[in-house]
């Protein structure tokens, strides 16, 4: 990565950068009750946490509420992070995604479904992102890799991830069979993984 680290935020949290292990180390310090370390962690990850929740929930007030819950949960359960199971970033984003999806599945009416579906499939996440929160390079890289998927792979992945739909719902939305959708999700993610050079 060649971005300027002084720009702050998340720009170089890509899975193969040195920042990654820095975040792992930071969270271990947080687990020992270090509030200063948590502030540093907050500054690094809060744009990603808030952004993903906002992307899924769309409502600013709800998003802020869930983001607060997630960030406090990171503090509370930092001891739970286990680097044998994955990176700190992936631990944090998984926690974030689960919380956002729990909220969307429990509160959003089905009448809202079409609107959510349309929003999830739009390429908006990249355009909406504020410049300082994530680097253009990183976003371009992910966009390019998403573009390399087949249409059905891309739709399956984005509906599930940004829309918070279960794979059964995705199948209904796309009028595809369950078998097709689950295969497309896996193939799509494998292709993304290889395109992004994610370490395994």
């Amino acid at each position, binding site marked *: 990565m060649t971005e300027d680290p002084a720009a702050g*935020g998340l720009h170089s949290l890509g899975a193969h950068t040195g920042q990654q292990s820095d975040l792992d180390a930071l969270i271990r310090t947080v*687990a020992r009750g270090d509030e200063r370390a948590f502030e540093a962690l907050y500054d690094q990850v809060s744009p990603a946490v808030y952004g993903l929740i906002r992307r899924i929930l769309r409502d600013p007030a709800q998003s802020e509420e869930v983001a*607060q819950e997630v960030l406090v949960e990171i503090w509370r359960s930092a001891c739970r992070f286990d680097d044998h199971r994955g990176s700190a970033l992936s631990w944090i984003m*998984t926690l974030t995604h689960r919380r956002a999806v729990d909220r969307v599945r429990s509160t959003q009416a089905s009448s809202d479904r079409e609107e959510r579906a349309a929003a999830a499939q739009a390429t908006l996440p990249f355009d909406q992102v504020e410049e300082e929160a994530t680097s253009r390079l990183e976003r371009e890289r992910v966009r390019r890799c998403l573009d390399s998927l087949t249409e059905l792979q891309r739709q399956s992945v984005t509906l599930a*991830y940004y829309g918070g739909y279960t794979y059964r719902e995705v199948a209904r939305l796309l009028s595809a069979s369950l078998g097709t959708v689950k295969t497309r999700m896996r193939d799509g*993610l494998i292709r993304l993984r290889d395109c992004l050079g994610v370490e395994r």
Partner: protein
Amino acid sequence: MRQDLHTLAGAYALNALSGEDLRRFEDHLSHCDSCRQEVRGLTETTALLGTVAARTPPADLRRRVLEQIATTRQLAPQPAAEPRPRGWWRRWGPGIALAACLVVILALGGIAWDQHRQLENYRTAERQVAEVLAAPDATWTHAAPEEGVSVTMVTAPSQERLVFSAHGLERLDEEDYQLWLTEGDGTAHSAGVLDVAADGLVEPMVAEPLTNMHAVAVTVEPRGGSDEPTTEPMMAMPIEE
């Protein structure tokens, strides 16, 4: 069927499985190394999808989060020997993973000899308890889930029963502690509410049957207990096969 399940790795990494689909896949995952490996790589990938949605949070959020963590107690670390992950924890919602931080397991021996003695004494009083304690395959497990609280569990697969006892629990005014046996899929079977004496000692309780049960858990429930758990377990212990 294996192959069929394996292809759900993508949906799982996207957090797009729920209910029975989730349970079956996690069950599969628990004994499939290559699946865990794949899920790990795919989850790193979805994390990147998450980070590109980043946007600057409201400025006020930072202050509120920092204020809240200043008064939020952190969970205690888990012991080094972590029990094999079981499918059941997810069914009860994301909070249970955090509750599990509190769970300190397998502090075998040494911790709770007073309970050991109490249980020994109890032999004469309660036949079922005595049978479990006297079973040739009886296994004693001690744990200290919180400071001041100790738990003893004696399992006897040959008797299809276990005995649960605890010391140091705070008596609750409006609620009861309820003991559960949980299956691999998260289904919880009540083993009754704990009878906590004024000195914090819990009368030994018998829970059965053990077949297909993966763990013992205690939750706080409305007085008299619930049909199924309504709160996250305050403690949980795997039942060793």
